[in-house]
């Protein structure tokens, strides 16, 4: 378990990479900033933007990377997580990309970071004012799996024609007794737009509501950005008799003993033995550092 450290990579200054600071040229950044401003002004609305080709594949975080490249400055400290962890391969790859093309400081600590790019999780440590959380988004439109046509869904959003979404959730209840959406659970932002929170577990949905941090969403392949400004109302869709609920575990984290964080299941031997560990590695480390249970396996 490493402590969160500020790491500067002096050998990877932008000056000798041949690319602009944070890869994108300034004209492109300006275009994206304008789109982000619109996104902040109309919370939850998907703003089309002139997405660029990035040197990483579509579907691997190109939208989030373009947003990060656009908002990041030389004094920023960047944290990148995938599945809540800093050391998953794609998180490592994206963090290195910015260390190399922007020469900025990176960290694994949620508290020290000014910009956090994430895939599939919101950190367990509450975010604070001034922080920016950048989500990587695969399919930005929550209605896409109900209506595949962009021309239709745009109208539906404009008219707040969201009945189909409730029907979908209701059908889950009729079939399974529960709403069977466990991640990418749709939310209503600021009382208007229904928004895809990206494939975070619904466990994380409540963290979006009223968050003091600015939340920005980038979908590179689909060329859309959207945003939740700080302190915005974010409600997960539900029914009076089937209120929204988050998942829980009977187990606790094998490392830190946490009984309230999102747990990953790890198969540890050929007999199918399992342990459960915090998906947020930084949170787990923090708890261990402050003397939480430490009977590591």
């Amino acid at each position, binding site marked *: 378990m490493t402590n969160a450290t500020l790491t500067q990579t002096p050998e990877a200054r932008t000056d000798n990479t041949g690319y602009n600071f944070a890869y994108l040229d300034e004209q492109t950044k300006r275009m994206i900033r304008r789109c982000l401003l619109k996104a902040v002004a109309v919370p939850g609305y998907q703003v089309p933007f002139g997405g660029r080709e990035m040197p990483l594949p579509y579907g691997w975080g190109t939208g989030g990377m373009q947003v990060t490249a656009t908002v990041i400055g030389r004094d920023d400290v960047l944290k990148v997580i995938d599945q809540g962890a800093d050391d998953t391969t794609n998180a*490592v790859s994206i963090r290195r990309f910015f260390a190399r093309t922007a020469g900025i400081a990176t960290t694994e600590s949620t508290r020290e970071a000014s910009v956090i790019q994430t895939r599939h999780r919101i950190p367990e440590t509450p975010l604070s004012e001034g922080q920016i959380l950048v989500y990587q988004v695969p399919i930005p439109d929550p209605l896409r799996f109900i209506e595949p046509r962009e021309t239709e869904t745009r109208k539906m959003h404009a008219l707040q024609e969201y009945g189909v979404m409730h029907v979908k959730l209701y059908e889950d209840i009729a079939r399974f007794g529960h709403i069977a959406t466990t991640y990418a659970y749709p939310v209503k932002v600021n009382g208007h737009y229904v928004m895809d929170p990206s494939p975070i577990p619904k466990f994380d949905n409540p963290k979006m509501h009223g968050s003091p941090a600015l939340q920005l969403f980038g979908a590179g392949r689909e060329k859309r950005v959207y945003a939740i400004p700080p302190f915005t109302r974010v409600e997960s869709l539900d029914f009076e008799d089937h209120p929204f609920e988050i998942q829980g575990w009977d187990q606790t984290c094998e490392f830190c003993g946490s009984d309230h964080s999102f747990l990953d299941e790890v198969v540890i031997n050929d007999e199918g033995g399992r342990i459960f560990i915090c998906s947020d590695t930084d949170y787990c480390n923090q708890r261990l550092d402050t003397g939480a249970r430490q009977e590591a396996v």
Partner: protein
Amino acid sequence: MYVAVKGGEKAIDNAHNWLDETRRGDPSLPELTVAQIREQLGLAVDRVMTEGSLYDPELAALALKQASGDAIEAIFLLRAYRTTLPRFLSSLPVETDRMAIRRRISAAYKDLPGGQVLGPTYDYTHRLLDFTLLAENERASTPPSEDAVEDCPRVLDFLNQEGLIERAFMKVGQGQPGGSAEPETPADLTREPLDYPADRDLRLQALARGDEGFLLALAYSTQRGYGRNHPFAGEIRQGDVAVEIAPEELGFAVVIGDIEVTECDMINQFIGTASEAPRFTRGYGLAFGNSERKALAMALVDRALRARELGEDIMSPAQDEEFVLAHCDNLDSSGFVSHLKLPHYVDFQSELVLLRRLRKEFEERQEAKHA
């Protein structure tokens, strides 16, 4: 067996090193040069340039070398490079009428001014493996007779003279029913997000960059009845065209170089109304280098996508603009399909939690029933 949970950083480094070694292959064999790829794998280079939307045979060859010959990976490398390039200005439209022709055929006329020029084609080769190439015995090739082909009149212009076919593009304001107006500045989907409904300039750009295999399958589907449009290969020409720019401060156009292109004019089923004489319609394909399969497929799909503008019923995938344009780019598709390789622990865990709960409830119900 213990399962490692950590170590992403080191794993990536090791993978990259191993990749370099694998790409190089047996080090006792001489390394492939970029020039060899450019000269001897020309059709692969042309495909990478076309779908990479960058005319640079040298860099396309380099990309192929770096990508171990994988076309889509090479296209990706080229695109990611292209996107960082500054744009000085737009060229004038290339005049394919004035192409220095290497190949030019028409399936619509037996003979025509300019003639049928077969050029260097695989078309009539017998697909028998040539084992002399295995032995690396260069055969002395007879150089082709260098009868320069004069500027060839365009096949579709013969039809134009009689008004038998719609005009290709017209200047704004000269609209003619069934034809498309030429936009002042063509759209560019690499700068602006794709918006539906898309005009033909945007569609053609998307198709030009689109995956050859995907377009080929769509084109084929139109021939098998899914959006049939009765095509004739009016003209296929391949050769060099000059690229001209007209900088404002100069006031006239200057040639900045030649590029090789393949162009396909498709003649398609005719339309007519009570007030208008029937005439053929067109489909158009253009690709860098010698990319005939791509140009043909593009022309067929272009025509299919004109269904809306020509008042045809949209019944088939190839006619469906959102379906075709949203899925024809192979970097979009390969990226998103391959992202399934990325970790999805969290989403999967969420599903597991729900599934276990549903199964538990199911068992409880079963027990209650039997009790």
